[in-house]
């Protein structure tokens, strides 16, 4: 009996020895104690799979507020020439890691799946976090592996940087008293290099809504067609020049068709190289537009050719304390300076105090150039469903969310049982 026990003990010991990795630490490893001293990380990302990051990167602790963090990981994205995403991961050291900063990048392709993208991001996060982890005791349990792979030589780009995309989308919904159908077809051809950007796109939107209730019946069809073309030449780190060309048709806007062309110049006060974090751009354009209307307008026109100019100022900042995205644009027609418009858009997302965050988005317009308004009065349905442009000297929207969170700062746990839970609040996403 005793003998058998001893065999068991030896076997158990053998198993243990086998379980301990080859580096065979003689000392006892108290991984829980090591984890307690691991860096505290705040992941500041709009569209990341945070739960996946938490389950894959286990050698740090996650906190829910940037002010609690040792490392603030700011993740921003920008579109690449291939219509993929360039993810810029800015690692900012805080507390004991003040001054230890790094920037890593990960580029995903247009047709990469969510899983591929989250795995690529996790790799970049791990690589970037290592500069901090290496300075804490948990580093001795973190292993870096390298898989040498024979890689195909860089392929010659026989497409000369052109990327093409064809897309179709359909959306259908309904119930007994209501049904709607929306279809969209788009085609685009882009050639983007750091020197020259060419974007050509065609799109069609076909919309249908029907309401039926106790003998009342209403149907509404609306189509939109558009072609847009843009060519931009880079002139140094701050200047660009280009040309817009657009063709549109819109039931909403009473446009049978319109054609417009406008040369433009742009000046960016920050160098374009910093654009994922900061931009302050001034864009001026001017040119003619030819329009033909479905119904005669309130000015009695069925078609006209008009010249117009516009100036836009756009500011975009993405910093530790939050995000600012705002643009102001003004335009007027040359035949009558009184026909003008002023648009303001602003979005701020701030995290200035521990636990307190504020998001506000708004836009407002002063409108004095509704040249395409049809002469006939709108029906009640057209008003309620907002299916046509209505006369208005202004329009606005404003949305805000104020959130205060307190309590435990750690957010390491992922618990999927009974599905996801939400504590409410507002989410704004831009894409």
């Amino acid at each position: 009996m005793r003998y058998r026990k001893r065999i068991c003990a030896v076997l158990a010991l053998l198993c243990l020895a086998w379980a301990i990795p080859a580096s065979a630490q003689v000392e006892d490893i108290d991984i829980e104690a090591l984890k307690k001293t691991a860096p505290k990380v705040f992941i500041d990302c709009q569209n990341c799979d945070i739960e996946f990051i938490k389950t894959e990167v286990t050698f740090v602790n996650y906190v829910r507020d940037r002010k609690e963090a040792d490392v603030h990981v700011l993740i921003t994205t920008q579109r690449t020439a291939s219509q993929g995403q360039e993810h810029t991961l800015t690692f900012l050291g805080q507390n004991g890691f003040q001054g230890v900063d790094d920037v890593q990048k990960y580029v995903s392709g247009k047709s990469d799946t969510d899983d591929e993208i989250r795995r690529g991001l996790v790799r970049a996060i791990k690589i970037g976090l290592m500069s901090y982890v290496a300075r804490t005791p948990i580093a001795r349990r973190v292993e870096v592996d390298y898989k040498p792979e024979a890689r195909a030589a860089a392929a010659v780009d026989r497409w000369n940087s052109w990327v093409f995309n064809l897309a179709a989308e359909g959306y259908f919904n309904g119930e007994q008293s209501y049904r709607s159908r929306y279809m969209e077809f788009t085609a685009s051809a882009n050639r983007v290099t750091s020197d020259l950007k060419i974007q050509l796109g065609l799109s069609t939107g076909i919309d249908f809504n029907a309401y039926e209730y106790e003998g009342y019946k209403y149907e509404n069809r609306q189509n939109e067609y558009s072609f847009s073309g843009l060519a931009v030449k880079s002139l140094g780190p701050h200047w660009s020049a280009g040309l817009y060309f657009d063709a549109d048709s819109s039931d909403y806007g009473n446009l049978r068709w319109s054609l417009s062309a406008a040369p433009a110049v742009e000046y960016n006060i920050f160098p374009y190289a910093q654009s994922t974090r900061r931009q302050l751009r001034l864009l001026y354009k001017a040119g003619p537009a030819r329009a033909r209307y479905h119904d005669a307008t309130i000015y009695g026109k069925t078609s006209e050719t008009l010249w117009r100019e516009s100036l836009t100022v756009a500011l975009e900042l993405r910093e530790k304390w939050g995000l600012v995205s705002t643009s102001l644009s003004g335009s007027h027609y040359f035949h009558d300076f009184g026909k003008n418009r002023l648009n303001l858009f602003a979005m701020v997302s701030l995290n200035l105090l521990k636990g307190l965050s504020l998001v506000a988005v708004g836009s407002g317009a002063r409108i004095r150039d509704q040249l395409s308004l049809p002469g006939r009065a709108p029906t009640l349905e057209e008003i309620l469903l907002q299916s046509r442009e209505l006369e208005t000297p202004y329009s606005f929207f404003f949305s805000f969310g104020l959130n205060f969170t307190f309590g435990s700062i750690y957010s390491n746990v992922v618990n999927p049982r009974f599905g996801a839970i939400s504590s409410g609040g507002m989410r704004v996403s831009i894409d």
Partner: protein
Amino acid sequence: MNKENKMSTRLPGFLALPALILIFAAVPASAQAPAAERAIDRPSVFLDAPDCDAAVLRADVGFVDWLDAAGGEHVLVVIRQQIRESGETEHTLTFEGRREFDGDRQMFSVLTPAGASAEETRQALARGLKQGLLRYAGKTGVADRLSVALLDKVKPTAVEDKWNFWVFSVNANGFLSGEQSYKTSTLNGNAAASRVTPDWKLHFRLSGYLSRSAFLYDGGEIVNTSNSRSFSALAVKSLSDHFSVGAFLETYASTYSNIGLNLSPAPAVEVNLFPYSQCTRRQLRLLYRMNFRSVRYLEETIYDKLRENLWNQSLSVTLELKEKWGTISTALEGSHYLHDFSKNRLEFTGEVVIRLIKGLNVNLSGGGSRIRDQLSLAKGGATLEEILLRLRQLETSYSYYFSVGLSYTFGSTRSRVVNPRFGAGPQRISISM
């Protein structure tokens, strides 16, 4: 006739664009090597470590090019030793970026215990060397062949937390929009408390919602309002990697649904056919609920009720897969009342995003319901605004939505170039509350 003439004079303008593009494109096409690859494949490193067996260390780190002599390196690594009073040896590793990495410098130390064998020292130094070189390698082509992992499994709750994992939040949100002939506003507020650990999930939430819209028509103003309030609570205990038990409590009032007050406690059990620990990759969860509903209606229902107490049971099956080839997320839920089995409902929702072949992505999403349990429908007819603005629930035996999207990309699909000039184009802003 005259108009057609004008149209044809516009045509040359239309043709001018391709011509311009050709001129632009003709400029320095050869200078534009497609930036499909990173500029550097892997960093070149020179190691200055007189007290160590440098050759052995170098052999341990395979993801950089080791230089035999200083000069031309991307990173210079210096290792120096110092013996502490405790007998431990402190190895200071200094990494100095050069060339493209100019100014990128870091320093940290690796400790080895007194009496550590040469092998132990080598392993500790090699680990430190790899960890320190990672930030440089991450910016080169070798990055996607590297992996980093913690050798041990560790509980996410291994932290010191004076709040014992309780998190509280309060938020207020609003949305206002309008122009001359219409204005809408929505306000929403929430207060929540939660405690989530691997063992327990507790969540409490109080919400209120208020919405108003006003339209000018025919000299008058049409005003509509709707509101709802709710309190919900959830407690889930983990039983194993596959089983959980818990209970929901839901209380709400809603003008859309003609409900003055609904109170429903519901014990529930859940089985996940995949282990919960694989949840970010795959889940197949079956959730059974037994609901008790005590309801008071705002207006008399089509069944002549102003209040009632009912039992209802439901079963839902949720499948979520996120794999290399794509993502699938679907749920099927069936429920019925116990007092009348024909008062039932079947709901399906699904979303599939798959890459079929290189460059071709398909996404399908949709949902459908067979509805035979609209017990709260009010007797009176709906107004035109209520129908068009969908302000109240209307009788229906089904509802559905379906969307399909197909996207095919080809051409030069591996470029890393980012060109932010003239902005990123139209952006879509979505606000969800």
